[in-house]
């Protein structure tokens, strides 16, 4: 509904602007040849009313349009978020970030493109119909203008969208190419300076397409402007070379030449909407092809004696083949060099990635999927952009005492303001603090299984000792499996499982 009001207001704004120009020019022409009883007050009032209408509808269009844009954006985002329930996006983080601009681009098509095109079409239609109905000299020529506009616009849209597709591909290619080059910066110096310059990624192709896109828009506008002026010149030429049949002296003669002379001004904006349309199509495409991977959620299962893995491994590592037994409480270590698949194994145990083989709790199969309460704690736990309280509770009910208690247990007593904002625009936690916060979350929900990925990486000696003591204590009531390639000597494990890289 708001979308239509937005478009309607844009049409009003455009039509009022055009009408002022035409009525004004007719008005002064009429005044110049005014018969004695010419009622000049009415047109003067109409002109002023049109001016107010234009100003008002201009502001209203921006206001309503923007409000609609914001509402639609947030609706699209919430819908997308809903679609991602129990799912993960397998994509690079910047492409996930781009979803914010994609949803906005989809919503912005109303203010950015539809409004302009609708007002262009309606301005053309209204002026053609009005002029024809009022039988104004040369009225038919506005139809020609309309046809020209339509043709140029179609070419612009089709070619513009083709270029936009190329642009997406080129950008993708550029990212792939530059990723490799930037990641190898440590060995650039082995090449000669000239070769180094030559191997650097170049965005020239990307920019060329962008420039073509701009050229297309500018050329469309330019051609349209030229043709509109040409039509106007032809009309005057005809006026010079044909006999006036009582037409001379008619102020309405002015109307069509004025329309054509100023066509570039009142229709020009419609050509500038192309980027908004391109972004809309790209955004739609990105949402459609979003690589969403569903996660299966499994209810909590009792684990009182043993977790047994048989020929078990992550689905991403077909050769991973782990057979092991873990008691329901105690601390276990998974060792091995990097690349051996330690993280994958932990994620497969939790169910965050699919697995092959068998996972039995007390001899029963819990089914596939992410088991409630089994937590995979990554190297750098995710800190939400939210208050400290929300980061701990994740929206569940806990008392301040409970929260402060668990904070001091994990050694984060220095974070005493539960209302403090964490993440961008707030307090930034260190790597060690993040790990502890991750553990605090797990403690609050009494999670029975912790799967810790490289918990000691990046911690100094004191912090490592504190963490070991905490884990050792918590392992009395739960199963803790640690994956680490370097681990402190004081860590006492029930058992150690060494993974070797598949050969």
């Amino acid at each position: 509904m708001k979308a239509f009001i937005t478009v309607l207001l844009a049409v009003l704004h455009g039509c009022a602007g055009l009408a002022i120009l035409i009525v004004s020019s007719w008005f002064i022409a009429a005044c110049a040849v005014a018969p004695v009883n010419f009622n000049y007050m009415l047109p003067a009032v109409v002109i002023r009313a049109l001016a107010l209408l234009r100003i008002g509808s201009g502001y209203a269009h921006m206001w309503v349009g923007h409000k609609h844009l914001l509402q639609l954006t947030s609706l699209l985002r919430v819908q997308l978020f809903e679609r991602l329930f129990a799912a993960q996006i397998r994509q690079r983080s910047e492409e996930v970030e781009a979803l914010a601009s994609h949803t906005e681009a989809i919503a912005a098509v109303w203010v950015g493109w539809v409004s302009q095109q609708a007002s262009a079409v309606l301005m053309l239609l209204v002026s053609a119909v009005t002029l024809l109905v009022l039988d104004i000299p040369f009225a038919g020529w506005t139809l020609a203008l309309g046809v020209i506009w339509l043709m140029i616009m179609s070419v612009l849209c089709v070619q513009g969208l083709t270029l936009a597709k190329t642009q997406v591909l080129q950008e993708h290619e550029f990212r792939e190419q530059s990723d490799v080059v930037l990641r190898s910066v440590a060995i650039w110096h082995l090449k000669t300076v000239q070769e180094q310059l030559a191997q650097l990624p170049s965005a020239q192709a990307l920019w060329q397409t962008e420039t073509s896109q701009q050229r297309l828009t500018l050329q469309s506008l330019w051609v349209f402007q030229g043709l509109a002026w040409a039509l106007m010149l032809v009309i005057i030429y005809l006026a010079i070379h044909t006999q006036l049949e009582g037409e001379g002296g008619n102020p309405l003669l002015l109307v069509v030449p004025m329309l054509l002379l100023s066509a570039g001004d009142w229709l020009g904006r419609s050509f500038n909407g192309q980027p908004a349309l391109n972004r809309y199509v790209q955004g739609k495409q990105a949402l459609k092809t979003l690589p969403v991977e569903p996660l299966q959620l499994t209810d909590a299962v009792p684990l009182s004696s043993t977790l047994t893995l048989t020929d078990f491994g992550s689905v991403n590592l077909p050769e991973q083949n782990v057979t092991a037994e873990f008691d329901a409480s105690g601390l276990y270590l998974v060792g091995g060099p990097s690349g051996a698949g330690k993280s994958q194994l932990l994620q497969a145990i939790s169910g965050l990635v699919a697995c092959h083989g068998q996972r039995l709790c007390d001899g029963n199969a819990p089914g596939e999927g992410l088991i409630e309460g089994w937590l995979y704690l990554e190297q750098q736990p995710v800190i939400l952009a939210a208050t400290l309280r929300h980061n701990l509770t994740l929206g569940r009910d806990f008392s301040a005492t409970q929260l402060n208690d668990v904070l001091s247990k994990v050694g984060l007593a220095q974070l005493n303001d539960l209302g403090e904002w964490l993440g961008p625009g707030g307090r930034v936690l260190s790597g060690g603090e993040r790990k502890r916060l991750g553990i605090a979350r797990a403690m609050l929900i009494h999670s029975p299984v912790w799967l810790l990925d490289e918990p000691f990486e990046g911690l100094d000696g004191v912090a490592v000792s504190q963490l070991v003591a905490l884990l050792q204590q918590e392992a009395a009531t739960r199963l803790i499996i640690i994956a680490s390639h370097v681990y402190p000597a004081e860590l006492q494990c029930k058992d150690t499982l060494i993974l070797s890289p598949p050969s």
Partner: protein
Amino acid sequence: MKESQSLPRWFNATVTKQGVASRSTLFLLVAIKTTRLLCLIAGYWLFAAMMHDWVVLAQQPDMSDWLGLTAALLLAWLLQGDAYRRTLQAKTDLLSGLEKRFAERLVAEQTSLVSIHSAYFWQSVWTRHISALVHWRYDYQVQQYVAVLTPFFALLFILVVNPVVGGSLLITLPLIPLFMILVGKGAAALQRKHFVALTRLGSLFVDRLTALGLLASFRTHQIEQKILKQASDDLNERTMKVVGVAFLSNTVLDFFSTIAVALIAVFIGFSLLGEFSLGPELTLHSGLWLLLTAPLLFSELKALGQFYHQKAEAEAARDAAGDWLAPLEAGQLDEPANELTEPQQFSLQLANNLLASQSLTLLPGDWVAVTGPSGSGKTLLLEALAGQRTGNYRLPCRVAMLTQHPVLLPATLRENLNYQRTFTTARLEQALSEVELKAWLDSLPAGLDTPLAEVPAISGGQAQRLALARLLLSDAPVWLLDEPTAHLPEAQHHSLSQLIYSLGQGRTVLWVSHKALPDDWFNRTWQVENRRVQQMAGEAVS
């Protein structure tokens, strides 16, 4: 970043050098666009004259006027096309110029520069920041001049034709910037008031998208969804408060331009009817011309408004990447020599006092142990010697560096070894056997042509040996080793160090290591502490 420096000043001081983005291009574009508008004003005069003939005098318009109008419009049209063409060309040139600057800066500073930001950041320098500067330069800046010059000329002509209309426009015109500034200040104040909330709420959506795994593990997806909904409603409400005022700026312009046209039309009409008689006598000719020309006072300013976002984007680009778009100093990219023959004696001094040294001596063939606590500046020292940092000294020859993390390209083993140039298969096999990878090579399905991505995950030790093979293939006379064994278990550290030691004989080696190495491998020790380098006394001279 110098916040106080305005964008144009910064651009002229930093970018406009050595033939990049010359100001003459900018002024030429301004001149073309302004001339086009003058043509239009002339065209309007002739158009109005013909309308006068046609409507008022009820006679056929003059053919000479028609020819004049055709010429004026044709010229305006051609100038417009030319301005478009030149703008795009200037943009293309500036894009290439800036890309070249940026590439040279990357090559000059290598790891010391690239490692401070993510690959994504550097990619956005190409995809976003450079083009933002270019658009600002050739759209916004050009339009800024045009938006001032056009009203000036238009008003001048209007004053000549009709001082009454011109005078009243002259009085009202300064009100526009005044109101726009007031509105701008109001919007900025609102923006500041809501700034924290807007930033926090604005980032929530992406933040929760990147935490899907966490939300699934804790089963809190629906809770977060509610939060997200509330947050975006709140965000929208606050945003509307800010933009509701900001849009007034646009409306001010719309108000003046619309009212001006309406009032001029009414004034002219009434004058023609003889209701008023102020100033010179009006005809349809001068009246219509005034009606057509008056909007030019505002139209270019409106066009500037459409480019307004470019200014903010260019400022963001300057803040993010501006430092790396300045030209390099002469000689910074000269090809270094392939050998080190002269003894080196130098006192190193890096820019901004990042690192300094007492007088250091380095003879060809020296083995230098570089010691010091972490964070003291050992890596800085190696980067400075390799010429990647701005300082008063760099080694006058090629160097080959080995770091903690070996670089493996997603390509075949052969391509990985041929990184610097193409070697014969025999030479590559020899290098691999020297780094004790011959047996591994023989186990590969396609030998040297096995893509490394398909090789079963190779261990850190193997990867570092591959990197060492690259060093062997390089003819650099100096090796700079930055903790090459830091991430390896003890046993591998010993075997790899021993290998480096035996293969590095005959080269000049500087070796940073936290792990123990035999003293008798080195004839010099440089101690780095707190960003100061000193040569340890009592070293043997080989």
